[in-house]
């Protein structure tokens, strides 16, 4: 977990909450800033790929750590 990244922990939440909360969090970030999202919903892997593709934000990383999915999204 990097200090400069904004972290959004949506563990235990299912679709559509992780996506909606990420959209809300991205809204408040400056361009270039990185949002780190921690999710436990298996469906969120596809959801965040799609979110990045559709919004132009870049999905820098997707890491799977046990039951946790950690995404790093950079705001365009």
């Amino acid at each position, binding site marked *: 977990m990097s200090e400069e990244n904004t972290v959004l922990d949506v*563990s*235990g*939440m*299912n*679709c*559509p*909450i992780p*996506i*909606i*909360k990420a*959209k*809300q969090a991205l*809204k408040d970030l400056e361009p270039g800033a990185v949002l780190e999202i921690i999710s*436990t919903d*298996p*469906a969120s892997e*596809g*959801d965040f790929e*799609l*979110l990045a*593709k*559709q*919004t132009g934000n870049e999905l820098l990383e997707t890491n799977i750590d046990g*039951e946790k999915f950690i995404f790093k999204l950079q705001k365009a």
Partner: protein
Amino acid sequence: MEELSNIHIVSGAGFALAFIFGVVGNKTQYCTMGAISDWVNFQNRGRFAAWVFAMALAIIGVQLLELFDLVAVNESRYRVPSFAWLGYVLGGLLFGIGMTLSGGCGQRTLVRMGNGSLKSLFVFLVMGISAYMTLRGLLGVLRVDYIEPFTVDLSDKGIADQGLHQMINYWVSGSASTGLAAAAGVLIAALMLFWALRQPGFIGNSNNVLAGSTIGLCVVGGWLATGWLGLDDFDPVPIESFSFIAPSGNTLMYLMTYTGATISFGVVMVAGIVFGSFVYGLLTRSLRLEAFSQSGDMVAHFVGAALMGFGGILALGCTIGQGVSGISTLALGSFVATASILFGSAVTLRAQYHRFSDMAWITAFGKGLVDIVLMRRDD
């Protein structure tokens, strides 16, 4: 050896179809609420196109079944001349709100339950109880006293069947021409196929194609199982296909009254989906227990599940029951119910977005409603 009864044969076929549905549901993580969420949240229509593709396939299949006189789909509950418009609209809206609050429709709930989600088990229990209460319990009084009196009998207007293709046929030819009705049905399906195939994110995504094809074909299979395989004048079974709300309630009753209860297509369908999803999870080692981590999330799931049970019975089905099985019969009520589900879900998705800006639920719903009506995107 005792001979298998008609319902056991139909149930066997239903279980096999539902098993496939469950395996594919878990593999693709397909979700109709997710399809609406993709569209509302980031204007992607790939998953929604999979749903429309399933509808189109199912319509074509049912048209063929009707044309070759294999299944009397007009005898199903969707095509009856009593047009319960208030139930379709109100039930659809409540169902749409409910499935969004509880993280998925009936089908998604069963698939996740099979993969080990205790959250989905909770949703299934609340949804099933609420559905059964609306069918035969306390909430049934509300349904009978306040919703059913608004039902319009279309046969009073000379319409014996609420199939859109039958209405088009009647208006064009003034008679019951099967060929013309089938042509009208295929035309509607062709328009849906055309739209679905043009959406980016559908054909290029194998999960969407697999989910859409499987759902559409399973629904046709369901009609064949109950309407053709189960055709027996001396031992009839209701003509139906995939649907999850009333069957969830009936499954709970079946489990509680097993020694005096009879198996049904709906009960095995619920069991088949859960088992199919479980087997897929087992083989891919993706089974995992999932529980509520926050009380607020549990409350949202409880309210959502109760609304799904109540709304799904009023609307005569869910996103698969009305949204694919019903639409495959081209019943007018199925289009109304499905549109209401979409609207209710879309408004709730926008309300959730506003809610996370610390807005009160009522204000968030008002804002969500304005967003959807004016087709407004993010602030």
